[in-house]
């Protein structure tokens, strides 16, 4: 019998383009990339040069501050490019694949007979440590720290998010093996949807299973942590995503490095939303080519709340299991602010779409207004099911008041937990950017 936590606050954005649980077919990608920008605060140190050959499982770069954290190539091939941006920051390390993508043998390890140090060593060695993110800050975990707990959310409530029950089907044993390995690091907590979810999740051993009910962001691991074991100043907890737990499980139980990743292609501009089997960091063009109308479309790696814009020939984000395509809403609308707006989705009731029931919307990327001073109160609180005052916290960040930030609970949130606050903001507040600025400031000042 698992604990049940019911969340009332939140919002499910009814976006058109949900994928059915079928797999689409697409040819394997030729290019693969790891983007250091997918990791907060990561400074990469390159271990390969452009034009060099790299084997599958070979090290592409390491974390400059924690050199034991390695980023491995998913495929064997040649390093095509190391693309840099402003101040020569590395944006993408691209590898051109040669031959088929095959799992790499690394040797099994039975976690029940291994020490915590051996498990950490194995994770570092196989590059799987990069799957472990730590709270506060949502950065790659520090292997030297004491970790209070490991949290795995096995469902995603974000708009059009993948159904992990479907994604892990066939890999249930590997998931359990991954949980067994992670349990060596710290007590494991698994957040589930409860009844009807995959038995791999609800029946997981070696972990405490907690059931969550309610709208988005109930699936956000930060919200789950807040209700199970809120993070206090000085504590560190780890979070891992289900597909990555499976990958970790395969390392320990089968001795194989498996970079395969299921990704769901969704959104209003997708012709046939479906699941695809691909590889971490794969170029997405082969998947989206005939499925997404490229004209005036924005392709997002991730969901519409937290994902990053990528080009039609861009690369899947490191932790992403979703691609979303939606229309660029860069057209002006005559008297748009007073029009009835029956095609607009709003959490507020100022558009009378709330009388239309559960319609799905073809939302675009229009901001629907311009940034303003904060006027409306209470709207962010309605979509944040945590014991936190979002407006006061954000104001403390804007004022760079570190003590206040800690007091108001900045350690307990990261961008995805508060993304809905940004969505609903009448004043079009860049909530996630403000929060990241605050978190970066905390990392510098407090560590």
């Amino acid at each position, binding site marked *: 019998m698992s604990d049940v936590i019911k969340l009332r606050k939140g919002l499910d954005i009814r*976006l058109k383009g949900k994928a059915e649980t079928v797999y689409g077919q697409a040819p394997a990608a030729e290019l693969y990339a790891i983007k250091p920008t997918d990791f907060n605060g990561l400074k990469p140190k390159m271990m390969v040069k452009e034009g060099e050959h790299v084997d599958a499982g070979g090290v592409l770069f390491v974390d400059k501050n924690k050199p034991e954290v390695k980023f491995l190539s998913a495929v064997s091939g040649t390093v095509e490019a190391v693309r840099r941006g402003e101040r020569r920051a590395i944006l993408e390390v691209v590898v051109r694949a040669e031959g088929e993508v095959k799992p790499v043998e690394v040797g099994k390890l039975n976690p029940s007979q291994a020490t915590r140090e051996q498990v950490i060593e194995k994770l570092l060695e196989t590059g799987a440590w990069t799957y472990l993110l730590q709270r506060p800050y949502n950065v790659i975990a520090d292997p030297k720290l004491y970790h209070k707990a490991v949290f795995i959310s096995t469902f995603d409530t974000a708009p059009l998010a993948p159904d992990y029950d479907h994604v892990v089907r066939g890999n249930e044993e590997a998931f359990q093996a991954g949980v067994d390995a992670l349990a060596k690091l710290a007590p494991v907590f698994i957040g589930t949807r409860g009844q009807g979810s995959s038995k791999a999740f609800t029946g997981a051993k070696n972990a405490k299973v907690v059931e969550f009910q309610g709208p988005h962001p109930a699936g956000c691991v930060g919200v789950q942590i807040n209700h199970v074991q*809120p993070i*206090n*100043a000085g*504590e560190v907890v780890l979070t891992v995503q289900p597909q990555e737990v499976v990958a970790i499980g395969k390392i320990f139980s089968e001795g194989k490095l498996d970079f395969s990743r299921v990704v769901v292609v969704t959104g209003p501009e997708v012709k046939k939303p479906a699941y695809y089997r691909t590889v971490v960091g794969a170029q997405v063009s082969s998947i989206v080519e005939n499925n997404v109308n490229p004209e005036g479309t924005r392709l*997002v790696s991730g969901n*519409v*709340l937290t*994902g990053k814009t990528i080009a039609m020939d861009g690369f899947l984000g490191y932790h992403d299991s979703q691609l*979303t395509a*939606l229309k*660029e*809403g860069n057209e*002006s609308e*005559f*008297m748009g*602010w*007073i029009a009835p*707006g029956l095609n*607009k989705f*709003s*959490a*507020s*009731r*100022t*558009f009378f*779409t709330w009388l239309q029931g559960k319609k799905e919307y073809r*939302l*675009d*990327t*229009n*901001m*629907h*207004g*311009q*940034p*303003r*001073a904060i*006027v*409306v*109160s*209470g709207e962010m*609180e309605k979509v944040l099911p945590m*014991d936190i*005052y979002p*407006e*006061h916290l954000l104001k403390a960040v804007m004022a760079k008041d570190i003590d206040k930030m800690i*007091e108001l*609970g900045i350690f307990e949130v990261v961008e995805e937990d508060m*993304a809905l606050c*940004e*969505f*609903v*903001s*009448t*004043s*079009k507040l*860049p*909530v*996630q950017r403000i929060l990241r600025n605050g978190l970066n400031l905390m990392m510098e000042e407090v560590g």
Partner: protein
Amino acid sequence: MKSLRKYLDSVKPNFEKGGKYEKFSQTFEAFESFLYAPGTTNQGGVHVRDGVDLKRVISMVILALIPAAIFGIWNTGYQHYQMLGLEQSFWCNFWYGLTIFVPMMIVSYVVGLGIEFATAEIRHEQVNEGFLATGLLIPLVMPADVPLWMVAVATAFSVIFAKEVFGGTGMNIWNPALVARAFLFFAYPSKMSGDAVWYGEGEAVDGFTGATALSLANSNMELATSKYDFWNAFIGYMPGSIGETSALCILIGGVFLLLTGVASWKTMLSVFVGGGLTAFLFNQFGPATGIAQLPWYMHLVYGGFCFGAVFMATDPVTSCRTEAGKYIFGLLVGFVAILVRVLNPGYPEGMMLAILFMNTLAPTIDYFIVDRNISKRRKRALKTA
């Protein structure tokens, strides 16, 4: 509509940096975004946004004010001809009211928006829409007789000293419309209260007394309740500031605000509960003065109580910003309003002062509520440490 869009696009360069009218860039921007919701897209955070924006919210407030405004315009004419001892048609009353109300509204908008646009240009910030609601609220809380120059001075005072010096929309401590009214109330009391300011110009017929329901209740409660019984007062057939008399029309607007979620039901309900309860207690245990013995439900329909509860106390910027705080804020607004009415015969109307006073206290209420969250977090950390 295409030609208008084309025209805007063709003149736009004049207002951009280096253009002929660079100084009016924010003014142009405000008009352009008024005509066309801009095609700005989300960059770097969420990719989709809620349809709502400040323009939409303010539009809802203006829509909600329309019933009270229309009734107020009619009632201004009706009260005027009552004073003159004449019965006039609906349109005649309405027309007279328009001649009073429209000039006031124009003055308030021209002065207020003029200052808003000027500050926006100076600060190089976009024009906030907040004043569009304030500009309509100001004439609605004025008596019919107030000279236009006073409306202009009061509007200028409130926009500059109650709003812009604090940083503009969203940063003000006091509700700007009420500051405008309070400014006139204390600077020119003879034009803002008393028995004669509610009717427009003209000679009153013999035997006409122009006291408002509240000041009448102050001296003679029975007379007040017989002249302005509950239903008359509820519908609004009584003298008073232009928009405040009809509880019915105000509540229609209030229901609209609650349906659209623009106003907080917590604040609104709490004001009525706080006021009703306080008046009820005075009925039971209060002194034997007329106003203390005025039945509690009459308090809610007399004077500006309803208008304040629905449109003023619910202003999100100057009210409490925490949900729990809204209950406390509302209850205290109602309590203080009745307290002022009953215990200070010098001010028959306590609502304006109550709201301004509670505006001042709202951040303190929020402070204690947020502090509870902070100490909870601190205790939790100590327990696990």
